[in-house]
């Protein structure tokens, strides 16, 4: 079998060698606890503060607006539930979000509802954007927090977060965006955004899994999820993971530095892949193609196939990609995102997501162009037999 190809960068990415190198001292000689007053502690604290500043710069934020987390899921929960808990005593008990959010946001909104709040999902357009009228209707005086994902992880669809944030703020609500797939793909600058909270994740940009941060705008209310010491201003108690903070800072800086060239490179490859697959499989459906879309995702359905067997056949042919959201057991579950966009269930069940990134080059694209249509033809032949 030829060398396997990784087309699942939206799921996770390899840790950058520079990130590993920058972290190593903090896993060894510079092991101190940042809260300690002695030299080891001071050294660790200085590294942590510096990492916080560097991540803040990458987000157009101030250092104290960055809260390190264990990743996107924790940051999403902290934002949604932290804002809900802070606002509900003031009579604002509704969480407004979209049906295409990551499960971390959807489940946090459910939790708010279980705790006596309400959850309200806005309608989506078929191309993956928030329906303007539905959104406007949702901005009632009982809304605590609005959470809208900037770039969708399954389709790459972009939502107009700058405008949506302004609308939410005008209605007196707090606004959170899950920016996990947006960071490094769009211009994420909190200084020019009305968002109160923004989630980023490390392992999508070359830092280890278990790294992430929540941007919390100065003055935005937030109840912590954890209770303990005063680390991170009490917002996230627990001894800080200095090595991971440093790793996240290096990965974020490198991601920003290469953003424009990668945007061009990935966009060119993705568009070529899409055009070639559509030429080879004329009835191919490209999800999210009708609206604005990030450059690293291509989500396609070949009618008459199913994702489970396509993914197996692709993997055996050396091409690693994803279906809908992979569930814990590794089986392919129907995508709640595509369902919310009104995609027919048999078409949604055929959806395969190819996501491009650091490990993608033109030769890899050529291989997919060669293999994918063959497997589609084979799957359809089987379906007819």
């Amino acid at each position, binding site marked *: 079998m030829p060398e396997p190809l990784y087309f699942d960068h939206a799921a996770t990415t390899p840790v950058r060698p520079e990130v590993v190198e920058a972290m190593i001292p903090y896993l060894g000689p510079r092991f101190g606890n940042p809260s300690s007053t002695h030299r080891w502690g001071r050294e660790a604290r200085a590294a942590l503060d510096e990492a916080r500043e560097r991540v803040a710069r990458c987000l157009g934020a101030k250092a104290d607006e960055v809260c390190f987390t264990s990743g996107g899921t924790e940051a999403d929960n902290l934002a949604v539930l932290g804002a809900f808990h802070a606002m509900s005593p003031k009579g604002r008990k509704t969480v407004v979000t979209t049906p295409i959010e990551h499960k971390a946001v959807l489940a946090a909104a459910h939790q708010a509802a279980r705790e006596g709040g309400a959850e309200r999902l806005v309608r989506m357009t078929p191309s993956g954007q928030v329906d303007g009228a539905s959104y406007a209707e949702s901005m009632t005086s009982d809304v605590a927090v609005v959470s809208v994902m900037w770039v969708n992880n399954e389709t790459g669809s972009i939502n107009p977060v700058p405008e949506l944030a302004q609308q939410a703020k005008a209605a007196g609500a707090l606004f959170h965006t899950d920016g996990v797939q947006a960071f490094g793909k769009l211009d994420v600058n909190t200084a020019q955004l009305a968002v109160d909270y923004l989630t980023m994740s490390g392992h999508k940009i070359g830092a280890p899994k278990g790294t992430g941060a929540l941007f919390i705008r100065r003055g935005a209310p937030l109840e912590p999820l954890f209770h303990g010491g005063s680390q991170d201003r009490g917002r996230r108690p627990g001894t800080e993971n200095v090595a991971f903070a440093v790793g996240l800072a290096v990965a974020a800086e490198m991601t920003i530095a290469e953003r424009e060239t990668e945007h061009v490179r990935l966009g060119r490859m993705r568009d070529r892949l899409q055009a070639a697959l559509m030429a080879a499989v004329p009835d191919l459906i490209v999800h999210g193609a009708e609206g604005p879309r990030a450059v690293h995702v291509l989500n396609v359905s070949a009618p008459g196939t199913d994702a*489970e*067997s396509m*993914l*197996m*056949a692709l*993997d*055996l042919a050396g091409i690693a990609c994803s279906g809908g959201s992979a569930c*814990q*057991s*590794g*089986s*392919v*579950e129907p995508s709640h995102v595509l369902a919310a966009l009104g995609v027919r269930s048999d078409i949604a069940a055929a959806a395969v997501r190819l996501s491009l990134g650091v490990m993608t080059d033109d030769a890899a694209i050529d291989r997919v162009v060669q293999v994918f249509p063959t497997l589609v033809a*084979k*799957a359809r032949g*089987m379906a007819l*037999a």
Partner: protein
Amino acid sequence: MSEARAVGPRPGDRVLVAMSGGVDSSVSAALLKQQGFDVVGATMKLYHDGADVPDRPCCSLDSVNDARRVCERIGVPHYVLNLQAPFARDVVDDFVAEYARGRTPIPCVRCNTFTKFSDLVATADRIDAPWIATGHYARMIDGRLHVGQDPAKDQSYFLWGIRREMLARMILPVGDRTKAETRAMARELGLRMVASKPESQDICFVPDGNHAEVVAARLGTEHAALQPGPLVLEDGRRVGTHDGFVRFTVGQRKGLPAGFAEPMFVLSIEAATRTVVIGPRASLTGHGVVAREVNWLAARPAVGSVFGARVRHRAPLVPATLVRDDGHEIELALTSGVQAIAPGQSVALYDGEALVGGGVIESGLRAKRALPVIAA
């Protein structure tokens, strides 16, 4: 693919192995890998009740994880096949409907017949695998399915319903071993995560053996099968009340009133009147079987053919003559009496050690029947 099958399994051929996460299928995969096959492992996700029960032998998250770990360990790819919808439709719904009719279904037979093997073959086709393998204790000899080498572990009884053409693609790597040998081999192969796993006893979607609860969850506790009804003797005399016929099966002794001259057993269940008929052991003996949903793994036999018949898992084989085959159902005359022939269970038919077919028992026949005279 068909060329590969013409010459039989050869190292280098791709084989799709159904892996439950248990020791038998894990060793099957490891053996095939050792023999040089291009092994692909797959775990079928059949049932999920929301709460994953640890230590459950099959279908829990742990089982999928164990299968995946075994595959990583032996260096082969592993996939999860989501069959929850077809399993619920073809197996669980039928299981519930059968109990509601007063019968005693075997979901494993229906799963093998309708779910497991058909999906395995379909998946094998999609990945160009000429062969499929499972960890069943049964043997393939000259294209015919035989009982397992270890009589205590033989699982051929559950396999009578698979489509005949599948036999040509089946490899059963542990069928010529004993369970002890399989466990020893698992340890030898370094598969510690599965080597000493407990046997699967329960039906996978009935975790604590309480099938009445599954029926209640599906049909509601108000359903007739779960309501009290009369316990009667063969002559119709009422001797008590039972708490729902779903809890009874033909041949059952547990849960019946005491105080009779000899132990009493369930003889039959009449769902329409919710009646459970009981009687002494002698009345349990049957000399004939009527079966439906018949499947042949060999050429359809002529009336008058003689088989070894098994009417229950692990029951001894009894000589049986095919006395009627009208395409809809068959009737078998048994040479010696057999206890507790339960509607819904299977009758599996053997030619020596080879499984040649079977069917779902419609009824047992008490009377001996004169065998037809077959013209020469």
